[in-house]
């Protein structure tokens, strides 16, 4: 079923990785590029429209929206990378391993992750934060995204592949087969799996912050910035529009880097 990516798909993937690279550069240089430190109020007049002095305008507390968006992007990306690591290790790796485990163990794991995957990831993340603390938002987002990574990785392993049949017929152990899968197939798709998880956890993390379960001020991420802009954006669109654009760009680049899905393929 896995078709080779088309030239169009390859171009989109390259755009995604370049976009992610540029985002990483912007984040690395955020303290240098930003015109004001994170959370600095009264940098300009209240709710000033985009101008030469403040290209993205200012918010209700006179904060420079460009500087705040850069700092917010930095917080969002940092948390999202941590969450991606959790989702890939706990979901992707466990899914790939579970496919080669003996049937009863594999069935129990599938059932456990299947139950968790039936709960919308956002709700699962909210519960995990409620049971722990808002400081663990990145961990919660990673844990909430893990069941989907598990299901995806599990489904990717072809248990009836020619090499698996050959291994069984010649008495090669499941452990050896698993090592082979992890060395070749999991490694080869790791970047793609990680990019897909990055997009998913970024959406979860920003929504958590928007609902008041994510980042804690003064360390504002993009979701919290947009939540704060809710009070003013109907009269001052720039307070929400630029942080939202930065957020959508990050998610879009990650999705492009992951490559098009079976259903998304052009």
């Amino acid at each position, binding site marked *: *079923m896995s*078709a080779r990516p088309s030239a*169009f798909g390859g171009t*989109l993937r390259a755009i995604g990785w370049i976009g992610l690279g540029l985002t990483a550069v912007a984040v690395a240089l955020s303290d240098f590029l930003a015109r004001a430190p994170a959370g600095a109020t009264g940098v300009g007049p209240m709710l000033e429209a985009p101008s030469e002095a403040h290209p993205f305008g200012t918010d209700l507390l006179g904060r420079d929206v460009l500087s705040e968006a850069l700092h917010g992007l930095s917080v969002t990306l940092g948390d999202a990378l941590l969450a991606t690591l959790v989702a890939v290790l706990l979901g992707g790796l466990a899914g790939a391993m579970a496919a080669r485990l003996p049937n009863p163990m594999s069935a129990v794991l599938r*059932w*456990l992750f*299947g*139950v*968790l995957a*039936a*709960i*919308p*990831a*956002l*709700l699962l993340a*909210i*519960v995990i*934060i*409620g*049971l722990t603390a808002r400081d663990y938002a990145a961990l919660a987002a990673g844990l909430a995204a893990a069941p989907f990574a598990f299901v995806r990785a599990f489904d990717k392993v072809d248990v009836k592949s020619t090499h698996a049949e050959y291994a069984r017929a010649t008495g090669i152990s499941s452990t050896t087969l698993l090592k082979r899968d992890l060395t070749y197939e999991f490694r080869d798709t790791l970047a793609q799996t990680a990019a897909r998880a990055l*997009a998913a956890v970024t*959406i979860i993390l*920003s*929504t958590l912050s*928007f*609902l*008041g*379960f994510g980042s804690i001020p003064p360390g504002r991420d993009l*979701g919290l910035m*947009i939540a704060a802009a*809710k*009070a003013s*954006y*109907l009269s001052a*669109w720039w307070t*929400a529009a630029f942080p*939202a654009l930065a*957020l*959508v760009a990050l*998610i*879009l680049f990650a*999705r*492009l880097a992951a490559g*098009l*899905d*079976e*259903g*998304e*393929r*052009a």
Partner: protein
Amino acid sequence: MVDFALRQAGRFAFGLLGALAAAAAISVVPEAHGFGPYLEAWGLRLLSFLEFDFGKSALTGMAAAQEIAAHLPATLALVTAGGGVALIAGVLLSLLFATGAPRRVASLLLLLLAALPVFCAGLILAYGAAKWLAWPVSVNARMTEPASIFSADPKALQLTLPAVLTVGLAGAAAVQLALRRATAASAEQRFRTGLKRLGLSQIEIERFYVVPQVAAGLLASAGEIVRALLAAAVVAEWVFHRPGAADLFVKSVALRDWNMAALILFVFAAFSFLADLLGRLSAFALVGEAVP
């Protein structure tokens, strides 16, 4: 068919049991300290859950089941209306962008749509409604009398439409993905060549063989679509200040009313499992085989 139905029913029952166990595990968290007492409390709570005793809301003192019964209809109305929008928009878009260059444009549009978090979509719709249509919006104020989704009153419609569209947009992305996945799978089926050799025209093949396959693919993804709609309802109720079960869930977790939060989580998981079951059975009935 009977074998398949029994397998799916078993899967549904095990799924519900797992969701019930997870809900019981969440609801006893504040009550028990230490692993042993926690396990004991969890077992007892699971037994009372199995007897349909879901405890009381820590905030209102009402039975949790009664509380959810009061809030669920609003969420279900939002999800149903959003689901309708999702199906219409998703299917129409699929027909418009089915082949050739439009399919490429659609794949980019779909990527953009999927990259837009639901709360951003909600805020954009609210902005459009307030600025360009001069409609009343409820993003910054709780409605004293929340408008009914199925009301014929134009003002009620103006207040509810952005929320319904927000949920519908999230659902449309899921519907589109399911349809395109099913189309991609059917494009690789060997029966196409065989039917062509038998002398059937492209239109006949599409109409009598491909459409049922694609429809079955969509039905088999019903659980996935319902999950997208429920998650979107949580955000839409929060953005537009609509009191429903999803809004109640967020407040219950924030205020540590774990009985309530656990029950809502179980109900949402049950809807997801039910949609999975019905979708897979309908897909099987449509094409006579299990759809992955």
